[in-house]
């Protein structure tokens, strides 16, 4: 049993801190607070990471990755979250990138990987379809071969930030034979192609994160197919395993909970600070203890992976527990904001009223509800855990 960092790891932590101090500077941090700044800040931030060689911590070095150990990755995540810098946008760096370097051909690697590392392209994910939800394999969007092109018809839904994207990685049906999983292909689609319509979906926080993307006779060159036709399901599944680590969001939850404590010390009711309120205190501690445990659950997974083993059965709870904790912290924050948590800032006036965190708390709470729905709902996660971990 040893969780001490080695000398080399401590030196790495110092390097991370120095980098963050410079890269996540006041200017960028205050720009991030402006409405509508999301994409610009992400791109600027990811390019800073890339110029340090840190855009893709877990990619193999030969493809431009940092080649970090899981421990380095853990160190970076903690330091990053502690200063409030954002995680990278996952679609390029964490999702399609690994699929391309694992299953793509050399031309595809050369064409796409450097642009992903430098945030030159904005990617979106075309998996879910209207009416299909967590039952991915039932997808219906069709790609039919026509000479050197596939012709695509159908629709994708819940496509996060498709309004910013110039590329989509997409699962399409190229065959209706065999099991539903067997006729699926993985293809890259230029979002500027004719025949693509992006329809915004406003979510319950009142914002536009999601979209429906409709394909009508969209022609995609055959060279954009990843790997073999009808093997797309396999590629997508390997991606899911890749995604697993860091999905718990421990580092960010630690920062968010610390912020709630600070806010609770300042928020007063009838002369008593909310951090002295017995029920609120209790709720903070319940979550904190769970989070302390989850941090070690994640470390156990990382330690196992560091030795080249699989992530272990305990990894199945990272998403379930991690999202539960994320939601609970958002709920604390909303409740802490009191009346001001109900206000939609910019709804009818720009004047800041009451807590400056009320509006953020409301949006955070509302969007956090998605955490247990997207990326495999809680219910599906539990079914999978029951089957593959408990053998039921």
């Amino acid at each position: 049993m040893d969780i001490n960092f080695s000398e080399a790891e401590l030196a790495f932590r110092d390097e991370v801190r120095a980098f963050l101090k410079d890269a996540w500077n006041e200017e960028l941090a205050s720009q991030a607070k402006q409405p509508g700044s999301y994409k610009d800040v992400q791109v600027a931030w990811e390019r800073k990471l890339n110029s340090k060689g840190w855009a893709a911590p877990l990619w193999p070095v030969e493809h431009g990755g940092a080649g970090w150990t899981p421990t380095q990755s853990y160190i970076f995540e903690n330091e990053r979250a502690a200063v409030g810098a954002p995680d990278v946008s996952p679609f390029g760096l964490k999702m399609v990138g690994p699929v391309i370097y694992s299953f793509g051909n050399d031309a595809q690697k050369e064409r796409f990987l450097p642009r992903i590392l430098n945030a030159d392209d904005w990617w979106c994910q075309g998996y879910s379809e209207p009416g299909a939800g967590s039952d991915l394999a039932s997808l219906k969007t069709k790609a039919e071969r026509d000479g050197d092109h596939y012709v695509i018809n159908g629709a994708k839904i819940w496509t996060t930030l498709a309004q910013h994207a110039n590329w989509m990685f997409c699962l399409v049906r190229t065959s209706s034979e065999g099991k539903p999983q067997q006729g699926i292909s993985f293809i890259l689609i230029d979002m500027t192609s004719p025949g693509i319509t992006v329809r915004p979906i406003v979510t319950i926080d009142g914002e536009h994160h999601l979209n429906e993307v409709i394909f009508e006779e969209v022609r995609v060159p055959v060279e954009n197919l990843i790997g073999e036709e009808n093997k797309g399901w396999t590629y997508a599944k390997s991606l899911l395993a890749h995604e697993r680590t860091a999905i718990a969001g421990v580092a960010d939850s630690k920062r968010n909970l610390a912020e709630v404590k600070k806010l609770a010390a300042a928020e007063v009711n009838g002369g008593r600070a909310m951090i002295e309120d017995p029920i609120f205190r209790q709720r903070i501690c319940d979550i904190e203890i769970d989070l302390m445990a989850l941090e070690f659950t994640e470390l156990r997974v990382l330690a196992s992976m560091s030795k080249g083993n699989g992530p272990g059965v305990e990894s199945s709870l990272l998403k379930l527990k991690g999202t539960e904790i994320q939601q609970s912290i958002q709920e604390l924050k909303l409740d802490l904001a009191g009346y001001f948590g109900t206000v939609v800032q910019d709804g009818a006036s720009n004047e800041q009223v009451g807590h400056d965190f009320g509006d953020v708390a409301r949006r955070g709470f509302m969007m956090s509800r998605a955490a247990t729905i997207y990326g495999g709902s809680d219910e599906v996660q539990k079914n999978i855990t029951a089957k593959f971990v408990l053998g039921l």
Partner: protein
Amino acid sequence: MNFDFSEEQQMLKDSVARFVQDEYDFEARNKVVANEAGFSDENWQKFAELGWLSIPFAEDLGGFGGGATDTMAVMEEMGKGLVAEPFAASVLMFGGLLQASAQSEERDALIAAVIDGSLQGAVAYAEPQSRYELKDVKCAAKVEGDTYRLSGEKSLVLNAVSANKIIVSARVSGDQNDEQGIALFLIDADAEGLSKTALRTMDAQLVANLKLENVPAQAICGADEGLAMLQQMRQQLIVALAAEALGIMEKLNATTLEYCKTRKQFGVAIGSFQALQHRMVDTFMAAEQFKSILYRAVCSIEQNESADSIEINVAALKAMLGKAAKHIGGEAVQLHGGMGMTDELDVGHYVRRLLSINAAFGDGDYHQQRFANLSLAS
């Protein structure tokens, strides 16, 4: 012992239900709240014609003479329709305080105008620092001849944008959290020295922050009666909002159940999954238990139980409201999956209204502590 509505109450309930069904579907409601005023004048006049605006007022004031049960009947149905018209703010809060204040010709005339729909009111009780404490009042009232001048700030005042008159709590004497020295004052909505900042809330209501600088005001109660009147108003409003919340919970549970019966995944209706079935049994039970505690609070008021007993029941009601709202609202979104996250569906709108009701007059945690202090002391 019986929990039935009287014939008159049932007719009232049915009339609200009919209005919601015929004229206030989700689409119509969204048009109403998109108005600059946040509600429809036309609907308001209809409410007046149907007599709804007269419900809580005594018969000798031209009212219906209704009690907690009548209000409950109306509010439950309004909840199901997410009715945005300011019934609670103008009739129950403003009208309720007027009715509780000292009789005068002016007061009676104002009540008559509330009843006929020609006048709208608002009540300003919260302040930027007050959180949920009614006694936390910094807004100051200074005597000037036989009138007063108010200076201070009031937060998120419901219906202040459309109101003609506003009742304001202000401090005549004492320190910030003193229970004594708080009185209620009537001001004109267009009085000199009063400035408003309008804001939207997540449940599509229009509220306003008020800044008062030497605003001329008229006292409607004695200097030490203000807090008790506000507490009385809170008690009535909690019961009314709880009835609205019950309507919403029933609606959310029904919508979710229907969705699970029809929505197919992996080839079968998701309502056939046992884990989801058990969770829907839990939300069903939560709504029934909430209905029971609401009935308990209403009965304790209607049957003139001791003030302590009523306060305990009302604190328990609001405490349970907080838990049930989060539970039922959370499950409604979760079981609707991705669809539950969209603003196109009505689910999110109901959920936001529930959260807003949870915060109104103190959230579940706040009232659970009031409950503990009241019930463990006795």
